[in-house]
């Protein structure tokens, strides 16, 4: 009965976990140094002597979208507050930076980098205040109703900026230190990831997850639901605001039309595609969805026939694999084999169709559409296919970690034997 009694009598304090403080802070310092080194390293290697401005810009965009999706994941995935107005906070950060730069940059004579840091902080503060304001209705609204409020909020912000002449109105505004800081955006992204990870590693994060899972039960367990919801909105929007400030300075020009709600939906797609609640999933999805439309620009050289054949085969493969997943096999190995079989059949099918199409050179040379024009169609189709095959997102609720990989591998071998 000894263990039980100590569990039930309050605050026995019988168990004091030992933490090697030297080791703890050692590991922390090393990991923080490594992160900073990583950010500065990326900044260095994206310089003009190593890669084109276009490629460096893509790296910057990846950083921006990682920060956006991981911060939205905190609101949407971890705390379960369905927000579809994340771009509003992004825009607030961007316009704060634009306004402050217009008003003060010329007179303050600060070095560019310091100014950017200052603007990121300013952007995050204004966005956090906005996040607080949006967080308040979330105390009363749930699910779709909250989604509509956040959607409306995003539109209000965009239309308001269109009508503020000081901020350029609908014609847009120039931002004076026109500077792309990859180091800063990477630091921001990593900071956002670190924060989410810390939250999920400690017991505090369970409070956030409990709000997502069941609000009524969370309240009954003494979780301060009000505080947690508002905090999630404040933290999430602060990161989006800082990202917005850096984004504004990267392009040196912003216009309200850039912040239409489709941007919010892209960020939301990243969170859902990665698996709601999974930080690593959000990161991966953000990188893939940022790079995919850019990589598809290279489709100029693909023939129309080839494109049709590929699309057809991807469709067949999707439903084939879906079929395989849904069918019950006793052995996981069988599932893998049949999925591979479907894929192989599709590749062969593709080759045959292409050969057939090549018999009609007329079709091939006078293709009505250039492959690159279809890139957004392909982008959209990819989303549909991923969602069909894996509706819970790439990582579902899991995080990518080596223990998780081991567990998955282990369960596979267990099924095999």
């Amino acid at each position: 009965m000894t263990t039980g009694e100590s569990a039930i009598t309050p605050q026995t304090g019988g168990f004091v976990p030992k933490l090697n403080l030297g080791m703890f802070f050692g590991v922390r310092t090393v990991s923080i140094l490594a992160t900073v080194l990583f950010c500065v390293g990326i900044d260095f290697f994206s310089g003009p002597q190593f890669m084109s401005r276009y490629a460096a810009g893509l790296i910057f965009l990846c950083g921006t979208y990682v920060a956006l999706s991981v911060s939205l994941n905190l609101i949407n995935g971890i705390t379960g507050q369905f927000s579809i107005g994340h771009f509003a906070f992004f825009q607030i950060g961007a316009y704060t930076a634009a306004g402050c730069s217009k008003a003060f940059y010329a007179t303050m004579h600060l070095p560019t980098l310091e100014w950017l840091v200052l603007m990121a902080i300013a952007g995050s503060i204004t966005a956090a205040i906005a996040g607080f304001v949006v967080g308040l209705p979330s105390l009363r609204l749930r699910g779709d109703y909250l989604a509509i409020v956040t959607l409306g909020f995003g539109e209000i912000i965009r239309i308001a900026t269109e009508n503020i002449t000081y901020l350029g109105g609908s014609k847009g505004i120039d931002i004076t230190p026109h500077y792309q800081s990859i180091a800063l955006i990477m630091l921001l992204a990593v900071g956002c990831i670190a924060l989410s990870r810390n939250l999920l590693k400690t017991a505090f994060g369970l409070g956030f997850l409990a709000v997502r899972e069941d609000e009524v039960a969370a309240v009954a367990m003494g979780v301060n639901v009000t505080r947690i919801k508002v905090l999630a909105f404040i933290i999430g929007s602060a990161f989006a605001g800082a990202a917005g400030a850096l984004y504004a300075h990267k392009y040196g020009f912003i216009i309200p039309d850039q912040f239409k709600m489709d941007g919010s939906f892209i960020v939301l797609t990243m969170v859902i595609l990665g698996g709601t609640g999974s930080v690593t999933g959000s990161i991966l999805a953000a990188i893939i969805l940022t790079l995919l439309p850019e990589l598809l620009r290279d489709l100029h050289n693909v023939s129309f026939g080839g494109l049709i054949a590929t699309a057809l085969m991807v469709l067949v493969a999707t439903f084939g694999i879906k079929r395989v997943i849904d069918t019950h096999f006793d052995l996981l190995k069988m599932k893998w084999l049949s999925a591979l079989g479907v894929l192989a059949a599709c590749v062969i099918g593709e080759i045959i169709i292409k050969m057939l199409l090549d018999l009609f050179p007329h079709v091939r040379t006078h293709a009505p559409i250039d492959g690159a024009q279809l890139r957004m169609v392909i982008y959209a189709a990819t989303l549909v296919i991923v969602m069909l095959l894996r509706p819970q997102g790439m990582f579902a609720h899991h995080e990518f970690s080596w223990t998780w990989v081991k567990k998955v591998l282990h369960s596979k071998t267990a099924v095999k034997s």
Partner: protein
Amino acid sequence: MTVLELDDASIKFGGLIAVNKVSFQVNEGQIFGLIGPNGAGKTTCFNLITGVYKPTSGSITFLGKSLSDVHTDKIAGLGIARTFQNIRLFSSLSVVENVMVGGLLRRKSSLPSALIYLPSSVTDTAQIRHRALELLEVLDLTDVADVRSKDLPYGKQRRLEIARALATDPKLLLLDEPAAGMNPNEKVDLMNTVKRLRDDFGKTILVIEHDMKFVMNLCENISVLDHGEKIAEGLPQEVRSNPKVISAYLGESTN
């Protein structure tokens, strides 16, 4: 010592009086039963006690403190924990994490320390986890500690709800139909567990239950509600032979 006292507590929803001037006292160390036919207002009583609803008239006091101004999420902090009639677990969290959410109430570290991962938050988490595991041992759930709670069989989910409620260190435990959907063996186990919570750990327990055998064997004192009103109170054998109770459950004879 009186732990919980309802004094003429009533609540109206529009024209419907769901609970009408109900008074009873639960003493320390008691296992108190609240029974009645469907729709009698038992769960509404629980909701009144836990602050989900505020009584339209009358008062509820817990350890001498009125609960009428206490917000729902502060109730657990005072020492009242509950389980739910329709199981409300944090379904995609693991069993031990579910219990840890209950333990979160007694944490010592703050949110900023968790966000920047200070040692205090790490040791705090380890302590909460350790205590959660101890509670799982009490309720015989240790072997499923890392299973997702929605994957548990029904009886274990019910026990997990009790473990989670216990993690908040309650003085008073409210069990809303804990035996619903359990098979006879599970019911016997549950009865022993509830008795143990009182005998070994000194919890005061208020239980709503439909299973008469379960209630009669478990509770020392029983209140019977019907149509929002208390129609009887007393020892199990007194309540069982009370004609009002019999008519509430079986209906009056027509002749």
